[in-house]
């Protein structure tokens, strides 16, 4: 019994590198009750363990399995297709059903499983006014433009109550480009108008003027969250693709 107490006291001593620990040890050493001192040491060891667990919780926050799974799920869905035609929405679940994307989030249950009115399907978090998405746009055709850091800031939304399956979106698209001999950064800003489609999870924007006048921007929130979007820039008429970007929500 005494040997165990000595061992635990030694362990506690090696652990007790803080002032608080040494103070405790000294105080209980004075009382002279070995059982009380042993309990104090155990409590102190437990406190240390709790601290370690707290640190682990903090680290675990960086790993979100649910988020990871939902991202993987949407990537697999994208790769295998969902069996629905263009402009259709897959209700999901075990019995597959396609409905028109005009019926998604219109306030009426059109899917057998009511998935078209689910809260996560109808979340407007992706296009909240104030959201700023940023990334680098890489042009591969159409116009001779270098890779440029581009931001899409949602500056206004409107959802008319008699047609809720779309959110009308006003955005500001700003493009950084390096100019002049001193390589300073200049920013071009265009105002763009478009809409968000819940069924396809696509934000479509048309810059009204400037160099991008004939270009449409299609951002698909296909990464399982409302924070990252795969964007394609292409000609409005023929839908030829010109540029790509992966945009993510700025903190």
């Amino acid at each position, binding site marked *: 019994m005494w040997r165990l107490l000595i061992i635990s006291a030694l362990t506690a001593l090696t652990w007790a590198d803080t002032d608080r620990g040494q103070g405790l040890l000294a105080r209980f050493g004075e009382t002279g009750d070995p059982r009380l001192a042993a309990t104090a040491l155990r409590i102190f060891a437990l406190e240390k363990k709790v601290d370690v667990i707290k640190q682990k919780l903090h680290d675990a926050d960086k790993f979100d399995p649910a988020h990871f799974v939902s991202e993987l799920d949407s990537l697999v869905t994208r790769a295998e297709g969902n069996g629905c035609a263009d402009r259709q929405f897959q209700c999901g679940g075990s019995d597959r059903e396609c409905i028109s994307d005009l019926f998604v989030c219109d306030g009426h249950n059109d899917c057998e499983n009511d998935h078209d009115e689910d809260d996560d399907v109808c979340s407007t978090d992706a296009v909240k006014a104030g959201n700023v998405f940023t990334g680098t746009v890489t042009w591969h*055709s*159409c*116009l*001779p433009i270098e890779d440029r850091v581009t931001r899409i800031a949602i500056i206004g939304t409107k959802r008319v109550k008699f047609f809720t399956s779309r959110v009308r979106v006003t955005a500001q698209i700003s493009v950084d480009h390096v100019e002049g*001999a001193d390589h300073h950064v200049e920013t071009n800003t265009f105002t763009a108008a478009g809409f968000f489609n819940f069924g396809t999870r696509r934000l479509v924007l048309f810059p009204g003027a400037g160099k991008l*006048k*004939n270009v449409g921007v299609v951002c698909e929130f296909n990464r399982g969250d409302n924070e990252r979007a795969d964007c394609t820039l292409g*000609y*409005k*008429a*023929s839908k*030829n693709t*010109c540029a790509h970007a992966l945009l993510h929500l700025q903190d």
Partner: protein
Amino acid sequence: MMLPFFLVLVLAVGAFGDADYKHDDEECCSAEDRREIQYIWKRVWAHSFTDRKVAIARAIFEDIFDHQSDAKKLFTRVHVDQPDSGEFRAHLVRVANGLDNLINLLSSPAVLVEQLKHLAHQHEARQGVTKAHFEAMGSAFARVLPQVSSCFNVEAWNRCFYRLAKKVSANLP
């Protein structure tokens, strides 16, 4: 001594670099531009009846005559004074079909080059046709076509049209 020389070199390279970029930007009729124009063109000519072609071509000619008053007398041979006459309408259809031909050839450059040479000879044979007339024709298209087609890409159209027009009017005064 070395530094100023270096600066001059850098500035010169910078200037040429910019010039090259601008040149490309204004003149290059990219593959995507050509596809875009072919796509839009199909929708401008939504059906094969001549009424639509005549109406659009007439609007374009009126725009040219508004901006280049001396151009009108070049077409007396096809009765430009009687715009509803069969002769003038037939001429409008010929112009529209000629352009239709060029746009369809945008995907086969070798044939397009020969066709452009042929068109150039045809226009050289007409006294009084100038480079300025072709410029006016380009601006006329850029003004009229956006009115008959939604999502009309004026920039892509201009980039490609002026390249075509330059070839046709190369030997004109």
